Every structure is written in structure tokens, then in C-alpha cells.
């Protein structure tokens, strides 16, 4: 009898959860607003981002030249610099004022200036020649492109000058080379061979898109349920504790089923399709997605407790997308983020999700190398599941008590 009872209850919880699951799937697919966010935005946004950052790196930044030395040395320098892909010497100016005007009008984004004594300082065995470089700071990528490429040319020409001078001192060429560059170096950029901006940013944006569309969609569904005051998010079944479980798990699994497929497309297939970095093992990514999506679902369900209207979630939470991507320490390195914000960031599934994903997908880490992030996501999933279930349990208990009280009052009045 007791065994039968247990089995029966077990079976009931499966059918109840299945019922909640099917109902939630139907709610998602019949709601055009949620479908725009869940499916259209999730699938289309990455394509837009890939198009925006299609050129990966900035090339041919226009630069103005002010050469007061009029020397063959400066011309040589400019010739070498112009050959680098980053810059293009578009204007030759007679004075700094003229070049400054060009910069001000955004015709150029940098100025290189050779003083009158440039060549004579180089010719003087004890002299030091100076080049002035002015960078437009309206985008950091201008500065990076201009400064690094100019530095490269400078180091190259500096070595040649040094060797000439040492040779003049009577050293032999080989010894002079060994002295000038005692230990030559090779620099290798790992993981994103093109070194492009898109290769770096888009993987982080892909994970953000999954996180934010889930957040907005779940808030929209919860807000709609509140508005319509349907009983969809009420507890079903006889025993409250089991009922809450069935409701929460049934709903979460519905979102999970949809998002597991979407994640396979967005963070699994898209990087391969768009030729973004994808050196990770696809099955490691898919296994990593399990706790990421679950944690995001339960996190979003907790946030949705505060949402009263179908649309208010989007109005309130839209700017979180910018906050989250910076707080996670992607575009701004996490080492430079003040500690209190790092603690707040630990509450977000995105923080662990994005680093784990970049490590696997872009840097070829295995799942065991991202075990820290993987475990943290499971902990978050558990934490938010418990919080949401507890709130639902208390809410149900209170509404039932109210109902009983109301019944008691109507009973006495009868």
C-alpha cells in the first residue's frame, strides 16, 4: 500500500511537470512578443554584430605629416611607416597649425612631426633625434594603430642607426648587431590570428545575447501571467512542497529545451559559420551550456518576481546589457575592476558563462580547465532555484491562508 502510494505520487509528479512543461512551451510559442525576443533577436542579433565588425581590424588610419627637416632620413622613415597596413599618410602639411586643423576636422586621426634638426641629430654621433606623434583619442583603436605601428618603424630604424654608429666606432658588424639586439624576440598572438576586434568581442556578445534574451523573455512571460492573473504560475498538486517543485522544474525545463537548441546554434554553430574563433571542443561547449542556461533561467525567474507588467521588464532592464558586459570583465580586464563590483559580478551567470565560453571556444581550454566557472554556474543554478522555489512556496502558503480566512469569514456570516 505504502509502496503503491509512493509510486503513484512519483508518477503524478512526472505527469504534473510534463503538463507544466507543455503548457509553458505553448505559452512561449503562441506569444509573438516573446518569440521576437527568444528566437528572432537571439538568431538575428549575432548576424548584425558580425556584419558591423566584418573588417575585424582598422586599416589605413589617415595621418598628416609635418616634416620640417626635409631630409632623406625622415622620408625613409615615412616610406616605411606608410607601408604598414595600419596607417596611410594622406596629407603633407607645411606647418603644425595646418595639420592641427585637419585633425580638428577629423580628416586625419594622427599627426607625425619631424623637427628641423632631425637629420642633423641623427648624423651627430652623440645626438638624439626626436619625432613627435599626435593621436586622436576619440577611439582607443586609433591610438593603438598609430602608436604601435610607428613604434615598430622607430625601433627598426633605431637599430640601423645604432649599428652604423657602432661600426663608426670600429666594431665589426656582427658584434654591433649582438650589442644592439642582444636577444631578438618573436611575438606570437595566440587564439585569434587576425587579432581582430570582432574575434574578441563577438564571442562575448553571443553569450550576452543568450543571457539577456532569456532575462527579458522570462520577465515578459511572468509579467503577462501577472497581468492576466492566470493561474499558470500557481502551485498545482496536493502537497505544496511537491507542487512548487513541479511548477518550477516544469517551467525551467521548457525554457531549457528551447534555449539548449538556440545555444547550440548561437554559440556552437555561428562561430564556425562566421569564421570567428572556434578552436574549442564543441561537446565541451555543449556540456558547459547546461549549467549556464539553467543558472540564467533561474536567475531570470528570480528577477521576474519584481516584474508586474508584461513590458515593464524591458523598460527597466534594457540598460543592464551594458552594465553586465563591463562588470563581467571582458572588454575591461577583470583585474582592473574594483573588488566590490567583482563580488556583485559573481551573482550573474553571465560573468562565469562568458569567461568559461571564451576559454573553451576561443582559447581551446578543456572542460576540466574551466571547472571553476562550470562549478560556479551549477552553484548559481542551485542558489537561484532555491530562492525562487522558496518565494513561490511562501506566496502560495500566504494566498491559501488568505483564502481560508476569507472562507472562515463568509462561513460565520452565513
Amino acid at each position: 500500500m505504502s509502496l503503491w502510494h509512493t509510486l503513484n505520487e512519483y508518477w503524478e509528479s512526472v505527469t504534473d511537470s510534463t503538463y507544466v512543461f507543455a503548457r509553458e512551451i505553448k505559452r512561449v510559442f503562441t506569444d509573438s512578443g516573446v518569440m521576437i525576443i527568444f528566437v528572432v533577436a537571439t538568431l538575428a542579433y549575432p548576424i548584425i554584430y558580425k556584419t558591423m565588425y566584418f573588417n575585424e581590424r582598422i586599416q589605413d588610419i589617415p595621418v598628416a605629416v609635418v616634416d620640417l627637416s626635409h631630409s632623406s632620413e625622415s622620408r625613409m622613415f615615412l616610406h616605411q611607416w606608410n607601408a604598414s597596413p595600419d596607417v596611410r599618410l594622406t596629407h603633407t602639411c607645411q606647418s603644425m597649425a595646418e595639420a592641427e586643423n585637419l585633425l580638428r576636422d577629423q580628416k586625419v586621426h594622427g599627426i607625425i612631426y619631424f623637427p628641423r634638426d632631425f637629420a642633423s641629430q641623427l648624423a651627430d654621433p652623440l645626438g638624439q633625434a626626436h619625432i613627435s606623434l599626435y593621436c586622436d583619442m576619440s577611439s582607443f583603436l586609433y591610438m593603438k594603430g598609430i602608436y604601435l605601428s610607428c613604434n615598430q618603424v622607430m625601433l627598426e630604424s633605431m637599430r640601423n642607426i645604432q649599428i652604423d654608429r657602432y661600426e663608426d666606432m670600429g666594431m665589426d658588424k656582427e658584434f654591433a648587431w649582438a650589442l644592439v639586439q642582444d636577444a631578438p624576440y618573436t611575438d606570437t598572438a595566440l587564439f585569434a590570428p587576425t587579432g581582430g576586434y570582432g574575434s574578441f568581442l563577438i564571442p562575448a556578445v553571443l553569450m550576452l545575447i543568450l543571457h539577456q534574451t532569456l532575462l527579458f523573455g522570462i520577465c515578459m512571460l511572468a509579467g503577462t501571467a501577472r497581468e492576466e492573473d492566470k493561474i499558470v504560475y500557481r502551485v498545482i498538486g496536493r502537497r505544496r512542497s511537491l507542487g512548487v517543485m513541479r511548477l518550477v522544474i516544469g517551467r525551467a525545463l521548457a525554457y531549457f529545451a528551447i534555449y539548449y537548441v538556440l545555444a547550440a546554434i548561437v554559440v556552437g554553430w555561428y562561430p564556425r559559420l562566421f569564421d570567428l574563433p572556434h578552436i574549442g571542443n564543441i561537446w565541451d561547449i555543449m556540456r558547459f551550456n547546461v549549467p549556464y542556461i539553467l543558472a540564467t533561467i533561474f536567475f531570470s525567474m528570480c528577477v521576474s518576481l519584481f516584474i508586474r507588467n508584461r513590458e515593464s521588464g524591458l523598460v527597466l532592464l534594457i540598460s543592464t546589457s551594458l552594465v553586465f558586459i563591463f562588470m563581467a570583465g571582458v572588454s575591461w580586464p577583470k583585474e582592473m575592476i574594483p573588488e566590490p563590483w567583482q563580488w556583485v559580478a559573481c551573482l550573474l551567470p553571465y560573468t562565469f558563462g562568458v569567461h568559461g565560453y571564451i576559454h573553451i571556444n576561443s582559447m581551446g581550454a578543456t572542460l576540466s580547465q574551466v571547472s571553476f566557472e562550470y562549478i560556479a554556474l551549477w552553484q548559481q543554478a542551485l542558489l537561484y532555484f532555491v530562492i525562487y522555489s522558496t518565494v513561490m512556496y511562501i506566496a502560495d502558503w500566504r494566498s491559501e491562508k488568505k483564502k481560508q480566512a476569507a472562507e472562515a469569514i463568509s462561513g460565520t456570516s452565513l
Partner: protein
Amino acid sequence: MNTILHTIWLVMLRELKRLVSRPLYLVASVGVMAVCTFFFLTLLKGGSAEKMPVAIVDQDQSSISQRLIHEMQATPSVDIRIVTNDYAEARDAMQKGHVYGIFVMHEGFYRDLVSFKRPQLDFYVTNAYTVGGNTAYKQMLTIVNLTSGAFQREVLRKKGLPDDVIMHRIQPLAIEGHMIANPWGNYSIYLVSTILPGILGLICMMLTIFVIGYELKMHTAHEWMNVARNNFTIAILGKLTPYTVIYTLLGVVCHFVLYDYVGFPVHGSHVRLMFGLLLFIFAMEALGVLMITLLPALRDALSIGALYAMLGFSLSGFTYPNMSMLAPVKALSYIEPLRHYYLIYVNEALMGAPSINSLPYSMALMAFVLLALLASPRLKRILINDQMMDVE
């Protein structure tokens, strides 16, 4: 005239009651803006990325490699997290996100160095994190140049040359870098100056869509129009004035926080910069009106509006310059008000350019307002037909 003003006042009064009836409106505007301002100003307090963790692989284990490591550890701009003789260990640390760069000294480094055989140094940086990787790259360049300079100095000293002569031998050519309007290379100035106004514009647009769309959704538009005596202009003026006042105040506060309290430099005119910000806010508000006019279902207008405005942050070109985008994408950036505000900001705050340079962008922002006005007859029809229209 008096009756018109009175009617506008009545509509405004109705709107103010709605505004305070639930916390959403003030939380979504003032609250969100306050939180974001606090967040972005404290997030980037350091201003520039300086010390990124790197790993050193010392396969040589010689006295000179050890001394080099000690010197590097003493260099303030370098943060050495791991010293190992195993490259695999360093690579593992990089894949786990602990370090951004690896510096390798191969076996035989010392032997080759003293016999002038120019031993090879290798360094690896991660490109998966752009800022972290770049900073690590710069650090390792510093390390290499320090090494090289120190070695030359030793050899030249042994040859009996005085120090000042040596200095010019080692560095016969130097670049003086000048970072226009941001001489500290402060990342905060460049990022916050565009992102905070951008968020404010986003808020203005979303909330404007919401306050008009909510009337349509709840089918209260006829009640609103009744208060406005069925005068569309009065209805819109009365409804949007309270919000416009809030947005304007937020814009003014935002300007003063950035350029007065925090003290970001402004090389041009404060007034014109603030004027540009207000124009941007109005443009975003107009865009909100336009969205709900074209998509009279609240949820569609909000979803599409959000997608549209979020793209503005990338299309404005403040992170990834506009000049490197594909031509169609570049064209698309002109329909993002944030792009125009960013260009005004560059002119006024960074370049100190004459006002004529910003004029086209100010006019573009005004064009958004004009566009909303041109589309307003459609909104008028929607409002008047609200009872008959099936918006939901």
C-alpha cells in the same frame, strides 16, 4: 489661449498622477540613470589598464635568467603571476584566464648571450581578451627593451665609455607621444563620455514608447483625448512635457557630473556640448514617438526599439571606429542619434572645433524630431480610432 494652456495643464495633471501612481516611471528614469552613473564612474576609477598578470617560463634556470626575473618583479608596471620552467603550465594558466601573456627564456639563454650569439626570446599574448592582451604585450616589450638596454650599457661601460654618451648610443631616436585631449590615455574619459549619455537616450526612448503605448494597450487613449478635448497637439504636449522635464534635468545633471564634478576635459564650449546632449535626448524621445507610431502595439514597439537603440552603441563608432565598417553599415549609423551625439562630443570636448563642425550633427538630431512630427498624423489617427482598434 488661456483655455488651451488650461487644457494642457489638465493633461499634464493627469500624466503626473499616472507618473506617481507606480514606481516604474521614476525608477526606470532617475533610478536607472543614478545606478548606471555610479557604476560606470566607479568601475573605471583606475582609468587606464596598467598591470596585467603574465607568466614567465624560465627554461634556462641560469644566474642571468634568475637576475632578470628579479629585476622584472621589481618593475612596477609588470605583474609576474607565475614563474615556471614548464611552458605547458604557463599555457594552462593562460587558458584558465589567470595570465594574459607568457614570456619564454629558452635553455641556453645565458650561454648564447655571453657569447654574443643573440639568443631568441619568445613571448605570447592572448588575443581573446583585447585590452588585457594588449597591455600584457606592452609590458613584455618593456621587459625586452629593459633587458636589451641593460646589456648594452654593461658592455659599453666595460669598454670605458661615460654614461651620458652611452645613453645616446642606446636611444638615438625617440618618439614623443601626445594623446590629444586625453593626455593620460584615460579609458574612463573615452568610455563614460559616450556610454552614459547613450544610456540616458535609451531610457528616454523606451519610456516614451511605454507611456504612449500603455494608453493604447489599456485602451485609455480615449480618456486621454477627452481630457485634451480631442486636440491631438495638446494631448501630446501635455503628456510628454513632464517626462521631457525629467529627461532634460537628467541630461543637465549628467553633463555636470561628467564635466564638472568628475572633471573630464572640455576643449570647446560647455554650452554647445550640453546643448548637443539635450538635442540628443529630444531626438531619442522623438524616436520613441516614431516607434510607437509605426508599431502601435506596445510590446512590438518596445522590442524593436530596444534592438534598434542597442545597436547605436556599436554603430556610434566610439569603440570600433566607423571608418572601418562596411559601407552599408556606415550608412546605417546615420539613423542612430547616438552617432551624431558622439561626433558632437568629439568636436566639442576633444577637439575644441568651431561650432560649424558640429552643425550638421545638430541638424541631424533635429531631423529626428521633424520626422516624428511628420509621422504624427498617423499617431493622431491611431489615438482617435483607439476604441475601434484592436491593438492587443
